C-alpha cells in the first residue's frame, strides 16, 4: 500500500461524504421549503401522472431547452447523453459481478465519452462567441466546463493512448467499500482523472450542478394544474390565516 493510494482513498471517502451529505441536505431543504401558491407554467398537466410525464420529457429530452434554443440543445443534450453512457460504462468499477446489460453497453460508453467532450466544446464555444452568453458567464462557469473537459480527455487518453490497469482500479474501489486500501496504479492520467473527479464530487452540492435536483423541485414544472378543484395552502399561510382570524 503506497502513500499515494492512501491519499486517494481518503480523498474519495471525503468526496463521497461531501457529495452525499451535501446533496441530501439540499434535497431535504428543497423538499421542506413550501411552495405557497400554484404556479405551474401553463398549459400544464391536470393530473399527477401528467406531471410525471412532463418532468420525464424535461429530463430525457430537455424539452423546454429544445423550444428555446436549438444550438444549446444539440450540444447540451450530446454532453449529457454522453455523460449518461459514460456513467453506465463506469459502473463496472463499482459493481461485481458486472451484469450483462452493463457489459453490453461498454463500447457505447466510449462513444459517449467522445460525444461528451464534443458537446462540452460546443457549449464552451457558445460562452465565448455569443455576446449574450458571454455576458452572463462568470469564471466558475468556465472552470466547471474546463473540469469536465479535463476529466473527459484524461479518460479518453487512458482508453486510447496510455492504458491503465482497469482490473486494479476496480480492486481499489471495491476495497474502499470494506475499508481496505488496495494499490492504485500510479499512472499519471489515472491520477489526474481521479483527482478531478473527486473535485467534481466535492463542488457538486455547492455549485450550479444543483440544477440536477433543482429540476425535480421546480414548481413551474412539477405542479398539477388544478387550483380550482383543490385548495392548495402552505403551512405558514395557514398559520397566518388563523392569526388574522383570531384578531
Amino acid at each position: 500500500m503506497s502513500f499515494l493510494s492512501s491519499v486517494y482513498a481518503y480523498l474519495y471517502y471525503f468526496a463521497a461524504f461531501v457529495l452525499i451529505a451535501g446533496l441530501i441536505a439540499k434535497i431535504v431543504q428543497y423538499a421542506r421549503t413550501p411552495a405557497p401558491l400554484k404556479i405551474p407554467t401553463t398549459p400544464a398537466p391536470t393530473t399527477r401522472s401528467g406531471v410525471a410525464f412532463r418532468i420525464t420529457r424535461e429530463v430525457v429530452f430537455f424539452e423546454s431547452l429544445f423550444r428555446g434554443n436549438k444550438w444549446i440543445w444539440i450540444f447540451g443534450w450530446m454532453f449529457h447523453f454522453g455523460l449518461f453512457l459514460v456513467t453506465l460504462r463506469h459502473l463496472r468499477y463499482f459493481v461485481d459481478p458486472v451484469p450483462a446489460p452493463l457489459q453490453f453497453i461498454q463500447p457505447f460508453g466510449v462513444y459517449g465519452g467522445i460525444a461528451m467532450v464534443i458537446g462540452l466544446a460546443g457549449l464552451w464555444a457558445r460562452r465565448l462567441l455569443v455576446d449574450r452568453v458571454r455576458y452572463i458567464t462568470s469564471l466558475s462557469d468556465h472552470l466547471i466546463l474546463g473540469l469536465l473537459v479535463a476529466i473527459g480527455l484524461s479518460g479518453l487518453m487512458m482508453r486510447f493512448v496510455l492504458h491503465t490497469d482497469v482490473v486494479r482500479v476496480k480492486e481499489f474501489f471495491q476495497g474502499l467499500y470494506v475499508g481496505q486500501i488496495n494499490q492504485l496504479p500510479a499512472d499519471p492520467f489515472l491520477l489526474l482523472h481521479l483527482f478531478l473527479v473527486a473535485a467534481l464530487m466535492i463542488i457538486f452540492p455547492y455549485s450550479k450542478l444543483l440544477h440536477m435536483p433543482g429540476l425535480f423541485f421546480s414548481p413551474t414544472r412539477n405542479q398539477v394544474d388544478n387550483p380550482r378543484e383543490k385548495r392548495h395552502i402552505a403551512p405558514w399561510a395557514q398559520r397566518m390565516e388563523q392569526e388574522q382570524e383570531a384578531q
Partner: protein
Amino acid sequence: MAKADFQVPELKQYAEIPTIEPGVMAHSAPFKSKEEFQGALGFPGTLVDDWQPKAIAKMGDLLSRYRSLRVYMDSCVKCGSCTDKCHYYLGTKDPKNMPVGRQDLMRKVYRRYFTLAGRFFPKLVGAEDFTEEVLDDWYSYFHQCSQCRRCSVFCPYGIDTAEISMAAREIMDSIGVGQKYCNEIIGKVYKIGNNLGLPGPALADTLEGLEEDVFDDTGVEVKYPLDQEGAEILLVTPSADFFAEPHVDGLIGYGKVFHEAGVSWTLSTHASEAANFGMFIGSYENMRRVAMRIREAAIKLKVKRIVFGECGHAWRVAYSFLNTLAGPWDFLDPRYPVPQHICEFTYGLIQEGKLRFDKTQNDDMVLTYHDSCNVARASRMGDRPGGQFDIPRAIIRATCNHFYDMDEETIRDRTFCCGGGGGLLTDDLMEIRVKGAQPRVEALNNVMQEKGVTHMAAICAICKSQFTKVLPYYGMEMDQIVSVHQLVSNALVLTGQADDDEEDTVEDEAA
C-alpha cells in the same frame, strides 16, 4: 404619431436578436412610493437605517417560505436559453433585461450571503455585496419586468423570473423602498374598493348610463345591477371596465350575455376590482387582503357563483390563487368552477346554442388576437390544458367573419407581453413600456401588412390600456385594440331586439 423623447424601436419584417448594450436602461426607474402610501400596506415609509442587514434577513425569510425562489437561485446553469426571450431585452438591448441578467441581480447577493462558494470565493462565482448601487439596480431592473413568465417557458428548469422580481419587490418594500404606482393603487382598493378609486355612487351612475345606452341601441332593457343581494352571479371585473374605451364596451357585452342567459347577476362596490396588485409587489399578505374583499362581497350578496371579467393578471390571481387566498368556496354552487372566466361563461352558452350572432356587425374589422401573458402562461380556461388559447379564439370566430392569428412564435404560450404588465402601467415608465411593446407590435404590424388585419382583440385591462397608449408611438391608431366582449356585444342579437330584421337573420344563416 405620439412624440417620444427616446428612440422608438423600429419594426422589422423578421424578428432580430439585438447585440447587447450594457446599461442603456439603468436610468429607467418608477417614482418611489411616499410614506403615506407605504403605511397602509404595512411597509416602512422611507429607506430604513440598517437597510442592508434587514434586506438580507428578509431574503432569508423568503428563501425559507418560497420553494420557487430557493430552487431558482441555485439551479441556473447560465445556459443562455432565456437570454433572447424577454420583450424588454428585445426592445431595449440592455443585458440586465435578459431574464438571467435580471435574476443575477438577486443571485449575486444570494450567493454572497447564503452560499459557501460566494462567502469564500465571491469573485469566482460572481457574488457581490448588497451595496447601494446594487439596490439602485434592483429598483430599476426589477421594475422592468412585467412578470409575464415568457422566460419560464424556455428555461430547462422552468426558472420563472417573475417569482424573483416579486421577491425582490417584497424585499425592497420591507426596507421602505416601494413603488408609488402599485402601492398607491393597493391603498385605494383598501379605502374605496377599486384601483381607480371610483366610489359607489359613481359606479351606480355609470351603470345606469350603460343601461340607457344599450336600451337606445337595441330597444331591450338590459340591466347592469350593482350590490343586488340574492343575485345568482357576482361579476368581478377590472375597474377600467367602468369607464375607459375599449374596456367599457366589454362590460356592455358581459351584461348582454348575462341577459340572454337569463341569469341574475350583480357587481359589487366592495369588490369593484378584479385586479390584485398585491401579486405585483410579491406580497402574499396584501394579495390576500385584496382577495378577501371578493369573499366578503360574495357572502354579503349571497351569490351562488363568481365570474371574472376580462383581465389577465386578475385572472391569474383568480384562477390560480383565489382558492388558496380566500377559499374554501364551499358556500357557492358546486356545479360551477370557482371562479369562472366570462369567456368560459359565454363559450358555454355558444356551445349550447343559446346565443345568436350577426357576424356582419363586425365586418368593418379584420381581427387578430393577443394572448395576454398571465392568461396564457399562468392560468387556464375550460377543462383542458390550452383552453385559455382556444376558448377566446372560438368566441372571436363565432362573432367575426375575419380573423387571422399572428406568427406562431408570438402567440399562445409563446405570446409576448404587451409591455405594460406587472405594475409598469404608469406614465413614469413610458420609455420601457414603448420599447417593451416592440416584439408584440412587430408581429401585429406583420399581420396588418400580410393579411390586412385592422384590429387586435384582447382580454386584459392592462393590455388594452397599454396598447391604447403605445400603438400611436408606432404610427398606429389607439382604437385598434378592442375587447373580446366588445365583439360579442356588437354581434349578439338580443331576444326582442328592435333592429332584429329579416335581412340580418337570412344572412346569418347563409354564413
